[in-house]
């Protein structure tokens, strides 16, 4: 076991190194977006009563009179110190705001991912084992309908049906109804923090708030996962090693889950990269619909208030999160399929 782990350190390190140029690209794009701000930031910061002299002074203070390359170095220096600028609307450093709100977004996104995989993978497997059956058609309809549903619209419909008509969902305002006390912040994940202090009632309240936004988000991302699972399973099931395994008299359960599914998982895990891209994007929309206090609704508020430092900080944070998730997926490959090394590609 130790030997096997040691053999994997090389490829993993290579993959980590491969992420560096991508991060560099993300930082450059993020810098360019910051520089392309509408209007002159110096005029903006100087205020309405400024004359030409004080604007020039502020421009020099901000380093805006320097060549673009020098400005980029300043920007890099700020980034390394964790300085993303201050938010105009909250008055706090952007990094602190993002750190404060990130757990809410992560809790929502991860729950949605679990729901989505939990439904889509079995559905894809069922559709692949019974092509042309009712389940298969259901899968096809769901897949096509799922990607056509605008997330924000699904959210609004769910609020209408489950909150207004049926009255079984709590009011779609944030993570916790105001009658409950928020647990002391340990991880920032309400579901975990409430369990840590043993507060069952608040746990249920938080879970009830979470269900609707998470299902909304999951509906949108189920489609690519179910589609890929079905395609990959069909291909795996028609391959020679499955025929051999069947001919050798292995139990069909063993063939299906031990051999076919494990091989089919590789392309599915690849699709997860695209799924994350969708998910982080539609996260913003779902957070706005459900007034979820995550970084998505923070960015929407910042956009409305023309609070550009906050928006650019959000874009950079999301991009870095996405790079990290993709890295995680590639590393998960080595666990699923030991044959994969990163050096060859």
């Amino acid at each position, binding site marked *: 076991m130790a030997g096997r782990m040691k053999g994997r350190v090389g490829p993993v390190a290579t993959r980590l190194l491969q992420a560096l140029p*991508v991060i560099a690209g993300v930082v450059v*794009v993020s810098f360019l977006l910051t520089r392309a701000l*509408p209007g002159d930031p110096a005029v903006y910061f100087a205020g309405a009563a400024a004359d030409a002299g004080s604007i020039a002074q502020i421009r020099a203070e901000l380093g805006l009179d320097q060549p673009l390359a020098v400005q980029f170095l300043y920007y890099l220096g700020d980034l390394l110190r964790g300085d993303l600028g201050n938010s105009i609307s909250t008055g706090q450093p952007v990094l602190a705001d993002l750190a404060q709100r990130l757990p809410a977004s992560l809790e929502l996104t991860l729950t949605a991912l679990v729901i989505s995989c939990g439904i889509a993978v079995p559905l894809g497997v069922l559709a692949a084992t019974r092509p042309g059956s009712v389940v298969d058609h259901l899968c096809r309809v769901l897949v096509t309908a799922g990607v056509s549903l605008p997330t*924000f619209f699904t959210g609004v419909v769910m609020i209408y049906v489950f909150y*207004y008509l049926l009255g079984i969902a709590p009011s779609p305002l944030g993570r916790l109804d105001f009658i409950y006390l928020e647990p002391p912040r340990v991880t920032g994940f309400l579901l975990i923090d409430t369990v840590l202090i043993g507060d069952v009632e608040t746990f249920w309240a938080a879970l009830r708030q979470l269900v609707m936004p998470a299902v909304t988000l999951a509906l949108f991302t189920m489609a690519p996962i179910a589609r890929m699972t079905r395609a990959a399973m069909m291909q795996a099931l028609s391959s020679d090693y499955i025929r051999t395994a069947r001919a050798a008299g292995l139990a069909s359960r063993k063939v299906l889950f031990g051999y076919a599914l494990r091989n089919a998982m590789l392309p599915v895990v690849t699709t997860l990269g695209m799924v994350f891209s969708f998910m982080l994007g539609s996260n913003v929309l779902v957070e706005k619909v459900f007034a979820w206090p995550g970084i998505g609704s923070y960015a929407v508020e910042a956009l409305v208030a023309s609070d550009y430092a906050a928006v650019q900080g959000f874009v950079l944070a999301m991009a870095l999160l996405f790079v990290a998730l993709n890295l995680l997926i590639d590393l998960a490959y080595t666990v699923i399929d030991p044959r994969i090394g990163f050096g060859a590609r």
Partner: protein
Amino acid sequence: MSAADATRPATQGTLQHIAYVLRENPVTLVAFAMFAVLIFAAVFGPSLVPHDPYASDAARALQPPSAAHWFGTDNLGRDVFSRVVVATRLDLAISVAAVALSFVVGSVLGAAAGYWGGWIDAVLGRLMDTIMAFPLFVLAMGIVAALGNTIENIVYATAVINLPFYARLVRAEVNIRRNAGFADAARLAGNSDIRVLALHILPNALPPMMVQVSLNLGWAILNAAGLSFIGLGVRPPTAEWGIMVAEGANFIVSGEWWLALFPGAALMLAVFTFNLMGDGLRDIVDPRRRT
């Protein structure tokens, strides 16, 4: 044998194949019909709607759907049906413009990278990787925030996030054919590189590009509507599906469902149409890629 005789069996075969695909999968036929309805609404909608989509009338605010107002009226007394129909033109225009832009730019860049390779290929590859390194909707938000909050910038942002798909597709299609026999023959006959690329190699990439366009159109509409839903691009009085859902969402908790439902359903139908059409086109263009 004349040229007409030579082409007739091939054309017939294609038509028969299309007819076969449509028979096998009537859903595709429905998709093309719905597409025709959308185009009709976009072209003739504004001159056919029963009410002025911008005329407010406080006396008939927030009325549920009725014979006079099929989709009801909104909080300012505007006719929701008229607004939904009129919005078709703007939504289609944004997405078609964005997809056309990324189609053209992506084709030129991808063709150059696939044909000449070398540093062009390397630079383009890195550039596309960088775009793909962002969650695409988030990148679009950042671009619109940086360039300014206008409809044109929504088009540019949507075009940028679609660019990698076209550039990569064209690059791959051109790359595998750059040394094909017919390309060598065209070069030997004295055609310039540009001419060989544009007239001999690129047309081969068009069928898969068409499928991509159809799938992308749906996605572009979703994207533009999402951006206007969070308050980017389209300004309030304008009739546009995304912003209408956003406005209607404020009334959903008090039970006025028709404000958000109808524009949302129109949006869904449009995206659904383009996705189905994309699947159908794929069946027609390449039967092997069916999933």
